[in-house]
């Protein structure tokens, strides 16, 4: 009985300790981002490994998600003679929800886990310690560029995902199923609002970018530098960022699209 209580207490205490450490860490990272102005090259390099290398999977996933969405909405809508709405249905689902969310989940799996593993390994091989002893702040040189690259790349990946998804939907709806191309676009144009839908979608992507990159770099920086600890940290990155993204998506949707 007491053992159980103790376990619960231990869990809660370590949870809040980690949460606290994570927030302090985030502030430090924000403070370190300024130093990137002096060394933009570091950011570009990380944009490549974080953004560009995630691009392929995002494009392929976007294409198929768009195609499947078009196919499924067609089957559902054709019974009501409303198959012309396929365009708007796909566009809205992608721009508002699936674009930001699926991109963030793919990002967590592809780039987030890689970031955690890389930083964790740098910690395990004393590279971070070594930098500190060379009077170089690893937060500025290692963490901040990776974090910022994630934050910037995510909205870009999100937009590309949406655009490719809509192209995929267009291919299925107009070219394969023979819907009218005009109503495909016109319905979308009539219902999708630049500010309310697209900007909010990008804002969502941005928030997810902050969360997913934060979790990824923190897990790497905070991991126990053993092979086991590193494996656990990588898993935690994927699980925690996926859960955080889904939860935040609900919160953001409730705030943004409540009217």
């Amino acid at each position, binding site marked *: 009985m007491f053992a159980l209580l103790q376990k619960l207490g231990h869990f809660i205490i370590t949870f809040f300790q980690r949460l606290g450490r994570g927030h302090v860490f985030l502030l430090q990272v924000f403070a370190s981002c300024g130093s990137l102005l002096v060394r933009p090259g570091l950011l570009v390099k990380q944009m490549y490994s974080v953004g560009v290398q995630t691009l392929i999977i995002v494009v392929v996933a976007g294409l198929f998600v768009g195609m499947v969405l078009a196919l499924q909405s067609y089957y559902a809508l054709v019974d009501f003679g*409303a198959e012309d709405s396929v365009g708007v249905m796909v566009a809205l689902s992608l721009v508002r929800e699936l674009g930001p969310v699926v991109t963030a989940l793919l990002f967590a799996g592809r780039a987030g886990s890689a970031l955690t593993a890389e930083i964790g390994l740098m910690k395990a091989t004393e590279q971070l310690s070594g930098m500190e002893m060379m009077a170089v702040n690893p937060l500025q040189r290692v963490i901040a560029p990776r974090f910022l690259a994630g934050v910037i790349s995510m909205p870009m990946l999100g937009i590309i995902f949406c655009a490719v998804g809509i192209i995929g939907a267009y291919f299925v709806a107009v070219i394969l199923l023979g819907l009218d191309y005009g109503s495909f676009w016109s319905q979308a144009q009539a219902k999708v609002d630049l500010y309310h839908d*697209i900007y909010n979608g990008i804002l969502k992507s941005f928030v997810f970018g902050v969360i997913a990159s934060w979790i990824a770099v923190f897990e790497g920086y905070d991991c126990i530098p053993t092979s086991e600890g590193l494996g656990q940290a990588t898993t935690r990155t994927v699980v925690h960022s996926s859960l955080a993204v889904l939860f935040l998506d609900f919160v953001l949707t409730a705030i943004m699209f409540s009217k």
Partner: protein
Amino acid sequence: MNTRKVEITVGLFAAGAIAAFFMLAMSVSNMSSYNDDKGYVVSADFDNIGGLKVRSRVSASGVVVGRVTDIEYNSNSYEAVVKMKIDSKYNKFPTDTAASVLTSGLLGEQYIGLDPGAEDQYLKQGDTIELTQSAIVLEQIIGQFLYGKSSDDKKTK
């Protein structure tokens, strides 16, 4: 050099994102107004256009001949002003052509149907179609139906 390659791909990535954004903004959202140079614009006033939208079809005998380009509300005449661009190869619509807002299927999208008249003059750029028939609003039809059926003249407006 390797740095060069990295920088170029990151540049391409950014360009792709910007292009994607413009694609979303211009052709998916309501930012753009669909403009195709070939064609002439005529307008028509309707009491009620129902669910007609910019870029809805304009068809004659079921053939798409143009697109709705602009919808406005005229607060003087209390009517909707619909501008539509008709493809220049269909330039022989008589001036007494009738335009009506129709629905494809029971719940489908709405479009404008053109019914050619018998005049010798043809519609040209800037003309107005005089004969119009508004969209059929389901609630009104049901209302009329109930009104006509009911024996007592209860007024439900």
